[in-house]
């Protein structure tokens, strides 16, 4: 709408050259932010203590692992794929971490073992998806079963983590000005987010991710490294899942095969709510961050309420989600 394609156009269009990103790219994210602010306003009017900045910080504290998962999932979804395995890989990572620590491995070795195994699973999945043309949905579903199965193979029972580095990390606190604090996990998550944003928005790899999501066959014909990128995003997702698994292991100081059941849906929901199209090619990592925060806010809302029975909890989550996506849709509708 903003630009003309007229060949005989006057030079006034040159002015537009300078404005790089059309604002409509940011529209869904802007809508998310507006809603988030609105929700906090409503929350602080209703519940005492809701407006405390520490509540906002706790959103990060409690969802650090989800943010890391969301970063990986955003890459995958932007190429038009999907990764259902992330929840199980988180569980597997907690299991590997807990069992190796129990066996007396030093923390750095454990961390490397977890990251390597998650990344390998991701790469494997990417290879199967790209080279054998297996649909991402079933390939990642298979990996989901596989990772969950490996968890049980390690142990059916939950394993506590008592190792010093992990407990120190888990119980550590990063003070912020004003008497507030976050946990080291938040720092890790924010760093991962920043790196993710850099790679996605500032590098050639990132552009290719968008191109593959826009049209894989076009990207192929344009001579882009489609295979590298497609395998790459699943590798990134695997790495992020493993990292999220470590954060989760620290968060719960345990390894358990039933951890993170259904967390893949939370991650997918956060990405999609953040304005990324499930069909690929459109979306921003920033949106994912707000998507995660939004899911967290819905939960905070409900736990502050404290009067909802189990089923009203579910219904309220659904309703808030609905209100949210409908408003977001209305706010962004104008673009077409």
């Amino acid at each position, binding site marked *: 709408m903003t630009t003309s394609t007229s060949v005989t156009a006057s030079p006034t269009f040159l002015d537009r050259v300078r404005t790089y990103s059309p604002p409509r790219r940011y529209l869904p994210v802007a809508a998310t932010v507006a809603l988030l602010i609105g929700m906090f306003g409503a929350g602080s009017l209703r519940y*005492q*203590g809701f*407006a*405390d*900045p*520490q*509540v906002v910080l*706790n959103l990060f*504290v*409690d969802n650090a*692992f989800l943010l890391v998962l969301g970063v990986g999932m955003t890459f995958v979804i932007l190429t038009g794929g999907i990764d259902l395995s992330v929840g199980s890989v988180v569980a597997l990572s907690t299991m590997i971490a807990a069992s190796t620590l129990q066996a007396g491995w030093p923390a750095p070795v454990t961390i490397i073992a977890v990251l390597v195994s998650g990344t390998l699973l991701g790469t494997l999945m990417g290879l199967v998806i790209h080279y054998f043309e297996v649909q991402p949905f079933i390939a990642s579903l298979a990996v989901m079963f596989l990772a969950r199965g490996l968890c*049980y193979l390690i142990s*059916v*029972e*939950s*394993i*506590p*983590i*008592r190792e010093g580095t992990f*407990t120190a990390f*888990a*119980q550590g606190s990063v003070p912020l000005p004003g008497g507030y604090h976050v946990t080291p996990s938040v720092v890790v998550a924010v760093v991962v987010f920043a790196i993710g944003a850099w790679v996605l928005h500032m590098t050639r790899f990132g552009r290719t991710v968008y191109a593959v999501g826009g049209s894989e066959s076009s990207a192929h014909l344009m001579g882009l490294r489609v295979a590298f990128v497609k395998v790459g995003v699943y590798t990134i997702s695997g790495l992020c899942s493993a990292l999220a698994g470590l954060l*989760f292991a620290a*968060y*719960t*100081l*345990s*390894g*358990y*095969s*039933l*951890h*993170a*059941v*259904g967390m893949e849906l939370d991650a997918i929901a956060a990405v999609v709510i953040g304005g990324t199209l499930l069909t690929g090619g459109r979306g921003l990592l920033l949106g994912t961050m707000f998507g995660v925060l939004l899911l967290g806010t819905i*939960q*905070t809302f*409900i*736990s*502050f309420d*404290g*009067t*909802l*029975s*189990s*089923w009203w*909890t*579910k219904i309220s989550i659904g309703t808030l989600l609905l209100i949210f996506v409908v408003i977001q849709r209305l706010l962004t509708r104008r673009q077409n």
Partner: protein
Amino acid sequence: GDKPKPSASSDSITMGFAQVGAESGWRTANTKSIQETAKTAGIELKFSDAQQKQENQIKSIRSFIQQKVDVIAFSPVVETGWDTVLMEAKRANIPVVLTDRAVDSKDTSLYKTFLGSDFVVEGKKAGEWLVKEGDAADVNKDGSIKVVELQGTTGAAPAIDRKKGFEDAMKANPKITIAASQTGDFTRDGGKKVMESFLKSQKNIDVVFAHNDDMGLGAIEAIEAAGLKPGKDIQIISIDAVKDGMTALAAGKINYIVECNPLLGPQLMDLAKKVVAGESVPARVLTEETTFDQAAAKAALPSRQY
């Protein structure tokens, strides 16, 4: 944010309760009991449902701390991994009471008391009954007692502990063997489907040990569909004693039920008041639980609350 404690007045206590979820009828009865007794005991209840996820439970406990409740009670989804958040509660001087399931922590100062049943004991009770009644259970008189086990959700604490308790007790009678064991996910549907295939793949099943009543009820349906009489041709032992289970027991379709009492409300409120008042409480409070055979069930059925 330094807002005054909302319930600083000594007469009203605010309790934050983080429930596991509402995954079964047992759990719902448990929730109801707590909500109702809180009301009658004059305790303001902040209830949150974790939908079977530990991270949700940690989040709600953290939010209870944020809201400065007087006491926190919760049924842990899993035993491990509570040190961090309980430490935060301790730092905020909020006492914690565990219900239903224990936590696995070296630092016992993190919580005041644990109220709940012992799953291992439940499994043991079931096993002991089978050892005692063993020969009657050998329905086909072939000298060996062939048990099939319907496990709860793989990895869930009740499933692991009940299995362990049962296996321990069973050792007392070498004729008892577990021929097959598979998860039925604590559901009727799961119990029925698994039992259907056991009936086809195993010969001469004598006993079904179901980790909860629902799976036992499912097994009854499968046994009936196979043209056999549950309770006679194949004996059934289960755990929980919910209403449907007790009805089946009274009707002779189940042979033995070990109770797992969900009505923790009164005991919990009692403990909570004591803890808030700073009185000392025992570190472990067992719920009052019993076992039922068919006769006992007939007698107890009219007065059952759930």
